[in-house]
């Protein structure tokens, strides 16, 4: 990766994919989708961790 000393702005980075035209919109959508799925996976993992903890606590 580039070692940027500049704050590029997350939204502005996504936006420039969109500004790249149709191919870019597809890239932006894919990146957004991956991001959403990633978030969902994290949320799911957190949920499972909480439920594990609860069951451990109730067993003890």
């Amino acid at each position, binding site marked *: *990766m580039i070692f*940027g000393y500049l704050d590029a702005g997350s939204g502005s980075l996504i936006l*420039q994919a969109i500004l790249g035209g149709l191919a870019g919109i597809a890239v932006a959508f894919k990146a957004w989708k991956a991001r959403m799925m990633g978030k969902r996976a994290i949320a799911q993992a957190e949920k499972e961790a909480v439920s594990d903890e609860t069951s451990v606590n109730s067993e003890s």
Partner: protein
Amino acid sequence: MISADPGSFRDPASHVVFDGERVLRLLDDRGLEAWQQLESSTFFSNAVESGRLISTTQIDDVPDGAVGALQHPRIPFVSYPYEWTFSMLKDAALLQLDLLAEALAAGITIKDATPFNIQFVEGNPVFIDIGSFEKYRDGEPWIGYRQFTRQFLFPLMLRAWADLPFQPWLRGDMEGPTAGDMKQILSGGKRLKPSALMHVSLQARIEERMSGASVRSDLKDAGFSADLILANVRKLRSLIESMTWDHGVEGWSEYQSCDHVGRDRETKAEFLRGALARSNPKRVIDLGANDGYFSVIAAEGGSLAIAVDGYEPVLEELYRTGHGENIAIVVSELTNPSPAQGWAGQERPALMDRAKPDHVIAYGVIHHLIYTASIPPVTVLDWLRSFDAPTTLEFVSPDDEMVAKLTANKLELELHPGRSEADFRVLLDRNFSIRQEHALEGGTRVIFDLVPN
């Protein structure tokens, strides 16, 4: 003795220092690697040859603490975007985009996008920050896009689409307006232009929603490529090309039609040529330069003329008509010249500290300071004396037609003493010796060739 450039510290890979008259760029490992790739590209040699990129040579005597060192020629006069006219910023923006497009084709990117990396040399924009170039890595977006919009695109929009000067904004906030600011400023019609919808409205919204999110690897994994940057750059280029500003110089045309201007112009020009021949200056500052008529005379005599005026339209005309060679154009009010600012108050030195003239032209200006800005004559002369340089000055007496206009709504008791020719001469004698003087035809103005006491 090496001293750091107070404006070059943000990039850890590369920074500028001064070694006497030499301008050096010191590099760390990463900076050196980037330089080696840049130097070996035809992009670099073409850009330097065409005068768009500062010439650069690697030197062997690397100062302690650096891994590599480059030498650049000294920029004759450094100016800042908040001192430029509309077309100057526009040309600088186009240069930034062109260099990025050409660099990408060579597998190199520009990691930032600020007009502070561009200087005007002999009237043309030149990119000076060699440290901004580095290897383009597949899948990386253009890191400088947001900065480009804030420091180039939005200021140009301010002028072209809202007829607002961008200089006060950039001077007050060197980072430039945000997309959110622009959304507030642009009127409904302008905000609905497709380019405004994308660069302004959408950017404002998406920035608000995604603040702090890490998206670079997501974009890379999704197939982001340099082609997308190039497509964006092409569209930005044509957008900026299409931006115009009708700078209308009505005020100036009116001024030119004043009796004293046409009548005295050649006499003042001839007098100035004589004064310049006597002082043989390298750098001349033309205070209240207006259309730059006298700056051009100084430049023709071989001096670098720094043309300073607070009225952008006349300097815009000077730039557009191509009189910029050997003339540095500065939009700045004399009553409030660009101060030292930025980090530690030192990053961007004050205009008058950068100017360092060895001759001062003060034609047609001091009556505006005395009568319009209410600066006492004694203070005006102290200020002129502070340049410590030969000075060509035009004195305008209280009986002059222009002074009558300027004081139409002022009472005598609201004016400072020292305005009459006799009083003014007393003040003049305290600061300067008169080498020559000449009474202009109308009988209310005298021009002086002065040397400081």
